[in-house]
């Protein structure tokens, strides 16, 4: 008290810091703002002796609220006073007076008093030495212990921190009050005896528990409450006081469970609750008030559910099999049982005469009867009054209690819990029960909404027993609310075989449907109360009286008595064929059902008018049979290449001269949604064979592809399966028109299959004969127009394919053309396509190796500038067919020239078969200007060739020539000698030694002796050759032997050599000088054979 929150802002802030927005981690305290003139509840005079005292009940109903709200544990007086206040003494005295007044108001209650000074300045310790002294005098003046004086500095920044600390100190004081009170209660106990005061034992333990709870000692509180519960059970109970005992037990049980949860002992809480229920479940009380027992049980479960839920919100983990939902569920079930028993026992209760229930809600003790309050006797009470009282309770129960308002919220709580703990099926079961409750409470539309949610799952899990029961209720609700669409759907389902209903029942429902179709209200479901029937009939007649908009029933969500399967007869149709659709309808109702129309919808609306059957004789569905309806349509040319898909089946039910039209709508081919569960489709398709009913196992063809018209143009392709790399392989295409009319706009596309690898695409060229000379040749020839073909005409086209790598290729030929056909009554140009593909394996036709050789046909890797040598390509054929080499030539680098202007290819027009080798030869001269000591790339060898057995053009293949090292020699030797000599006939031999260098060459020449010759000339000589000049050394040889004989060997060595020159010229001489010469035997007579031989040898040496 002492805070003026309406006028002083600081006081308001202090009050709010204490009392508002308290977080859960702060000490649980209850604050009240007292005005200066508050009053305490009066205290009863203290009893001197308990000897003659007989308690009138167990727990007083006002005691708990007295200690919670009316008797303060601590009164805190707030006062604005700074230590250095100018009128310190006056204010001190004022304060003392106030404290004294307060103490007198508190009277003999032990409520503590504390004083809080609200100070504006912050006192710095040590500076204000007068503070301690002033505090002491203040305490003395007010007669308060020093510990009960506090200072609250009022600065905005830390107010909350100060209040929290202050609050802790204050609650300590408050707890001493409760400790004092418990001592007071204990003191009473000594006066009690066990014969008359048993009720007081219970009451005292409860008080001790409660006070301990108030002083935040949960352990002690539980102990006392448990003791209390135990003592309570020891009380003798009869029908007279049972109600009081169980109400008190409920309170104590609630306290124990709640504290157990708070102390994180959920197991203890649950077992306490179990014990509680087990102990009281059998104690039902008087039969006339049995519903009170169930009401009590329901309440117990509900309260425990609430306590449990509160603990879960506080962080307690709950599991699927143990969570508050189970308790709400049980509470709801007991609430239902309560109403059921109430209606049974109070069947013929009449309105009471007197009002014995007056003051029921404000009795002095918990759980007593209002007509005999405070009566403490176990004797049977006054018979007459008791009976009247019971009757009034009964009357109240059935007439004034709205049971549904209790039951529905309980189901709702349970449902949200079961949803949270992943129990969808229990949740559904509860929803059914809740729907039943709504139905009882005459709220059929809510019930129907709930049931619609549930039924889908029962259908898809095929729990027909559950669906049957739910469906009956739903049908009833649909009737009550005149929900025509639902009514129709449910009725069709009701009539099916899956619902376990009698034939009479099904017939009754069918009759109702027929009535509806004729525009009459259906008959009420059996057991509908008359007042509901009146309302429902009214609703139906209003509905049917007006123009009824067409009713569409979504069959996909039901397991109805009519099932459909719409299927194309094939999965592909050519555009000039009629597309067939078969609709199978199975009627599983016990008698025939007639439809007025049946249609199939596809993704293309243009066929809708063809996919319609309206002949009534075809639409009579015999019971238990499958009716097949065949529909056809001719596809449109625009749909070629597209897929036509069944998107739905629609059946129409109506009766002539009735405005009501009902459409039954299936999506897809009829096996989507839960509809398919109506059929006995095998769970394992492997066992389909064992099924006899085609309807159940047939898989509808839901979509069909519209193909181009079947072409009637023959296409033949002629080609060699094996191609040679580089060649133009001809592929001949022959077309013949066997259509019945002119084929126009013929266009051919030929090329590498589009799925081929990119590398192949780059290594393949395709062209027509006219495109052979073109530079830009790709791997495709597209839309090569070929005009038109009359009936029976033929034409041929040749394509050429060049493969640049040896691998397999797939080439496709596509022939497109149009022919006029009749479609939908008009003549349209129908495109036709035929495609063929061919495989070609390409292989390398030949291998070319090129050698360079000296004029002596020896392999050569180095060559001197100005030297002539040979280029010899060898062509080895590995082709499977003979090839013809048409020509060959050299494409030479600048430094090399071909010797002889008319040099011709040696392999021209040579035909090679597999394994054969052709050798070409060219003589070339290396220019003198060639850079010495460098590798010289000679150029390329170009070979023109073709397949021998066809007329495709020759193609050229270039092969790189090997490279050679260029040498430079300062000294060069030429030899002049006749190609042959004759034995014993002198033969002239001359060596011309030239100096190509820039220095004078000093040479030592040595001519060795030879057995085959005698010779005349220098054997050993020194020569000096000036730069750019040459010297000639001549010999006359006299051959001694015939044959290819060794010439005398010439050696040259350089005496004064220029740098970089080898001193010996042996290597060069060995390469360029002839080593042998043919010597003929002396002619004996004029032998022609010898003469011809000598001419042949001459040619050999030259070549």
């Amino acid at each position, binding site marked *: 008290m002492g805070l003026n929150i309406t006028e002083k802002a600081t006081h308001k802030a202090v009050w709010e810091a204490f009392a508002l927005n308290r977080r859960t981690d702060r000490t649980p305290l209850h604050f009240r703002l007292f005005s200066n003139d508050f009053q305490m509840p009066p205290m009863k005079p203290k009893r001197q002796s308990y000897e003659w005292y007989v308690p009138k009940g167990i727990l007083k109903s006002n005691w708990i609220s007295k200690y919670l709200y009316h008797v303060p544990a601590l009164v805190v007086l707030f006062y604005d006073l700074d230590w250095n206040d100018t009128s310190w003494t006056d204010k001190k005295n004022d304060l003392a007076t106030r404290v004294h007044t307060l103490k007198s108001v508190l009277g003999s209650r032990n409520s503590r008093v504390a004083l809080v000074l609200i100070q504006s300045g912050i006192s710095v310790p040590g500076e204000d030495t007068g503070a301690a002294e002033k505090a002491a005098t203040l305490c003395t003046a007010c007669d308060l212990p020093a510990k009960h004086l506090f200072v609250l500095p009022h600065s905005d920044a830390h107010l909350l921190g100060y209040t929290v600390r202050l609050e802790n100190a204050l609650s300590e004081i408050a707890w001493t009050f409760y400790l004092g009170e418990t001592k007071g209660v204990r003191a009473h106990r000594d006066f009690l005896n066990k014969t008359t005061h048993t009720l007081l034992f219970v009451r005292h333990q409860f008080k001790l528990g409660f006070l301990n709870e108030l002083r935040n000692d949960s352990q002690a509180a539980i102990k006392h409450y448990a003791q209390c519960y135990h003592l309570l059970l020891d009380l003798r109970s009869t029908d007279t006081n049972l109600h009081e005992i169980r109400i008190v037990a409920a309170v104590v049980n609630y306290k124990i469970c709640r504290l157990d949860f708070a102390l994180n002992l959920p197991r203890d809480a649950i077992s306490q609750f179990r014990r509680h229920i087990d102990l009281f479940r059998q104690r039902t009380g008087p039969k006339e008030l049995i519903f009170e027992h169930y009401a009590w049980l329901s309440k117990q479960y509900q309260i425990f559910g609430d306590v449990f839920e509160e603990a879960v919100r506080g962080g307690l983990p709950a599991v699927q099999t143990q969570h508050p939902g189970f308790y709400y569920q049980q509470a709801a079930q007991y609430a239902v049982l309560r109403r059921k028993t109430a209606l049974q026992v109070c069947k013929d209760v009449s309105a009471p005469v007197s009002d014995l229930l007056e003051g029921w809600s404000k009795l002095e003790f918990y759980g007593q009867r209002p007509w005999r309050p405070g009566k403490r006797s176990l004797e049977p009470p006054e018979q007459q009054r008791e009976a009247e009282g019971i009757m009034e309770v009964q009357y109240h129960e059935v007439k004034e209690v709205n049971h549904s308002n209790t039951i529905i919220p309980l189901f709702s709580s349970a449902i949200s819990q079961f949803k949270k703990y992943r129990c969808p*099926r229990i949740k559904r*079961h509860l929803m059914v029960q809740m729907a039943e409750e709504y139905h009882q409470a005459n709220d059929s539309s809510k019930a129907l909404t709930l049931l619609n949610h549930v039924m889908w799952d029962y259908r898809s899990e*095929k729990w027909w027993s*559950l669906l049957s029961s739910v469906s009956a209720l739903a049908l009833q609700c649909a009737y009550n609310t005149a929900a025509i669409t639902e009514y129709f759907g449910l009725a069709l389902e009701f009539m099916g075989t899956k619902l376990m209903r009698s034939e009479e029942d099904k017939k009754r429902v069918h009759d109702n449907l027929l009535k509806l179709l004729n525009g009459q209200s259906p008959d009420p479901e059996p057991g509908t109360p008359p007042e509901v029937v009146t309302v429902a009939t009214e609703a139906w007649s209003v509905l049917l009286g007006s123009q009824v908009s067409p009713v569409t029933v979504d069959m996909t969500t039901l397991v109805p008595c009519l099932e459909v399967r719409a299927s194309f007869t094939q999965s592909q149709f050519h555009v000039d064929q009629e597309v067939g659709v078969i609709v199978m309808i199975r009627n599983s109702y016990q008698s025939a059902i007639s439809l007025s129309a049946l249609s199939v919808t596809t993704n293309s609306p243009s066929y809708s008018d063809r996919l319609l059957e309206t002949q009534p004789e075809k639409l009579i569905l015999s019971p238990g049979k499958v009716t097949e309806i065949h529909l056809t349509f001719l596809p449109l040319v625009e749909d070629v290449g597209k897929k036509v898909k069944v998107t739905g089946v629609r059946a129409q039910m109506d009766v002539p001269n009735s405005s009501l039209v009902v459409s039954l709508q299936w999506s897809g081919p009829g096996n989507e949604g839960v509809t398919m569960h109506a059929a006995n489709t095998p*769970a*394992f398709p492997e066992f389909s064979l064992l099924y006899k009913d085609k309807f159940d196992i047939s898989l509808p063809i839901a979509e069909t592809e519209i193909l181009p018209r079947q072409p009637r143009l023959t296409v033949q392709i002629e080609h060699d399966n094996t191609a040679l790399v580089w060649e133009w392989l001809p592929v001949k295409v022959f077309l013949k028109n066997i259509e019945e009319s002119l084929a126009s706009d013929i266009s051919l596309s030929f090329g590498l299959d589009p799925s081929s690898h990119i590398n192949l695409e780059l290594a393949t060229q395709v062209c027509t004969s006219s495109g052979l000379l073109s530079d830009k040749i790709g791997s495709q020839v597209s839309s090569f127009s070929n005009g038109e073909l009359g009936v029976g005409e033929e034409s041929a086209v040749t394509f050429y394919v060049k493969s640049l790598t040896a691998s397999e290729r797939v080439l496709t030929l596509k022939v497109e053309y149009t022919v006029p056909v009749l479609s939908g009554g008009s003549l349209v140009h129908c495109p036709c396509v035929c495609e063929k593909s061919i495989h070609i394996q390409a292989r390398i036709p030949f291998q070319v190796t090129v050698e360079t050789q000296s004029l002596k046909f020896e392999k050569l890797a180095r060559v001197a500038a100005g030297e002539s040598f040979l280029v010899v390509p060898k062509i080895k054929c590995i082709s499977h067919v003979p090839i013809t080499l048409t020509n060959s030539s050299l494409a030479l680098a600048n430094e090399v020239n071909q010797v002889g202007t008319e040099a011709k290819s040696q392999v021209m027009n040579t035909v090679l078969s597999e394994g054969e080798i052709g050798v070409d030869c060219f003589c070339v001269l290396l220019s003198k200007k060639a850079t010495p000591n460098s590798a010289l790339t000679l150029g390329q060898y170009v070979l023109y060739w073709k397949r021998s057995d066809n007329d495709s053009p020759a193609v050229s293949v270039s092969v790189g020539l090997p490279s050679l090292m260029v040498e430079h020699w300062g000294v060069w030797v030429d030899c002049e000698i006749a190609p042959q000599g004759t034995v014993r006939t002198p033969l002239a031999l001359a060596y011309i030694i030239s100096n190509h260098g820039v220095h004078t060459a000093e040479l030592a020449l040595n001519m060795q002796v030879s057995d085959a010759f005698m010779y005349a000339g220098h054997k050993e000589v020194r020569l000096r050759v000036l730069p750019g000049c040459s010297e000639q050394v001549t010999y006359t040889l006299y051959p001694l032997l015939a044959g290819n004989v060794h010439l005398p060997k010439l050696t040259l060595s350089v005496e004064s050599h220029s740098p970089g020159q080898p001193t010996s010229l042996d290597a060069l001489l060995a390469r360029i000088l002839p080593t042998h010469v043919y010597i003929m035997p002396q002619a004996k007579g004029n032998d022609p054979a010898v003469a011809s031989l000598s001419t042949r040898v001459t040619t050999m040496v030259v070549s």
Partner: protein
Amino acid sequence: TMAVCVAVIGKENSPLYVWVGSGREELHLHYLAHTGLDVIQEKVAAVNKTPGDTRELYLGLLYASEEYKVFGYTTNTRIKFVIITDAANTTLRDNEIRMMFRRLHNMYTNVVCNPFYIPGEQITSREFDQGVGALVAGN
């Protein structure tokens, strides 16, 4: 009797066979057998998270109401068995329940071995009926 309800439930949770003791609330027991699937599903899912070991087929007590106790069992082919007993029947030990399930499993195996039985269909077999009768009678 040992049990008041015996149910065989297919792999897609549809009932293949439900036996309810005579004089019992048939619909209520059907609901109980059905709702037991919630707990079975959770238990099976929890086991599947830790692969490797062969699974215990007997799932134990699924849940208990004031009147009934619901027990569950699942085969490796995801066929579920549910047995419901009276909550008042306190003499029944866990081992006996386990044995009942094992017998039921054997009986089911015999049904499936019948070449005329199509797996996934409702079980209509006199032998199975008799077997269940013997099972619930406790002999």
